[in-house]
């Protein structure tokens, strides 16, 4: 086997306790550069918390998250329900840039570009909170994309959307990945996982049960829990 590239991100023994419940239990995980990772697992397995812990939104009770080079790169996250600020679509994207120190003309230009890339130019000046769910999620992707993150976390980004809007979101995620941004995403839609994933991280009861290339995962899952999961889920995919 060729020499493994250095991990972009390495989580070691992450334990997260929320409201007295141990949600992540000494979870360890390596995210290598250049891949699209889909995190799978049953409801309550800890998928969302894993993303939040990696992104730094949830402090771990113990364990560490180490980034390549010792410093977290620019990162972004898209949530299941996007939170839009009470201002125009364009201003929402510009806001994210302003927070990250992009000002003036550059901010304006990058916001417009990102809006265009998700196909929302026509409604760039509409108040963001009156847009449809699908439009808001695309706007959330634009806001994240504009930041040029090295890694983008997506937590069930299509769970609240109809199939058409979900397809649109998938195309955008693929386009972002094609620019070399690292994608780490959760979904409960196995079809979506097949379409988007290079590798699957399967989480069971707060621990990584297996981390496998996607084609191999779907052909012959390594862990017993994943096998059970796929069996249970297969009829609906």
């Amino acid at each position, binding site marked *: 086997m060729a020499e493994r590239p250095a991990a972009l991100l390495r989580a070691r023994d992450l334990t997260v306790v929320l409201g007295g419940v141990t949600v992540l239990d000494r979870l360890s995980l390596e995210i290598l550069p250049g891949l699209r990772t889909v995190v799978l697992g049953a409801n309550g397995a800890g998928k969302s918390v894993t993303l939040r812990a990696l992104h730094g939104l949830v402090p771990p009770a113990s364990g560490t998250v180490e980034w390549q080079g010792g410093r977290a790169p620019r990162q972004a996250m898209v949530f299941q329900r996007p939170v839009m*600020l009470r*201002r*125009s679509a*364009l*201003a929402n994207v*510009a*806001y994210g840039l*302003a927070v990250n120190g992009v000002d003036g003309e550059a901010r*304006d230009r990058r*916001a417009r570009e990102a809006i265009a890339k998700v196909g929302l130019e026509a409604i760039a*000046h509409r108040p963001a909170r009156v847009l449809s769910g699908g439009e808001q999620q695309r706007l959330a992707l634009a806001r994240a994309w504009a930041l040029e993150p090295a890694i983008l976390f997506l937590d069930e980004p299509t769970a609240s959307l109809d199939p058409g809007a979900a397809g649109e979101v998938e195309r955008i995620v693929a386009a972002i990945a094609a620019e070399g941004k690292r994608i780490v995403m959760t979904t409960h839609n196995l079809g979506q996982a097949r379409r988007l994933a290079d590798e699957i991280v399967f989480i069971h009861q707060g621990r990584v049960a297996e981390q496998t290339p996607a084609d191999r995962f779907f052909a012959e899952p390594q862990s017993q829990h994943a096998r059970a999961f796929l069996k249970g889920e297969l009829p609906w995919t």
Partner: protein
Amino acid sequence: MDLNIAMNFRRLAVTWMAAAVAASTILAVKDANAQETFITVASTTSTEQSGLFKQLLPEFKKATGIEARVVALGTGQALDMGRRGDADVVFVHDKVAEEKFVADGFGVKRLEVMYNDFIVVGPKADPAAAKGKDILAALKKIEASKAPFASRADKSGTHAAELRYWKAAGIEKPQGAWYRETGSGMGPTLNTASAMNAYALTDRGTWLSFKNRGELVIVVEGDQRLFNQYGVMLVNPAKHAHVKKEAGQKFVDWVVSPAGQAAIAAYKIDGEQLFFPNAKP
């Protein structure tokens, strides 16, 4: 456009603060402009509510160009205001307290201005049979019959006078359920008396301009002892350097001048004179 509006919260916040500062500045400037030309007079509710100042102050302003701002309180509070230096002139009616005020160095010199008279009002039916000219006899009857009596109990000039009359009538300290202390000004006390058909001591001016009389009528009037002397004095600039002594002195001089005295005599309600000028020339 909306991009800029939304992004520049800071600008909005600055505008907001600027508006706030502007608002307060306007108010401050408004005051500062007026500062040179007005004096503050601490006086009593009885004079204010009788409407006397509405007649007096415009004439004073015409004569001197000075605006007199009247804060109407009980005599005790008005003197306190002077003691704290919050008034330039004190214009009240409690000779004993006024003389102490001057003796303590808070007032420059007390000048007598005018008098009106106190009256006792009470229910038309007069359950205590107090009607008459003799204030002391009337109070004795009220006390004996335990008919309700409303007292201001607010350390005002009227309250001080009331207590003196009780004492003179041989009643050291009236008490019992019939004696009700309202702890408020003349008007509110009359409102209370009207509501519960009680007797009350009041100055004639407030009574004449009082509208909510109900069953109340005048029960006692005309006793020499009911005369109520008003005095005016400048707050001592030696105690409070900011006192506007020239403008304040002008007010004092004017109210005891023939012009001021004439203006006081001219004030009438329904043809009845309320205040009788008696400044010593």
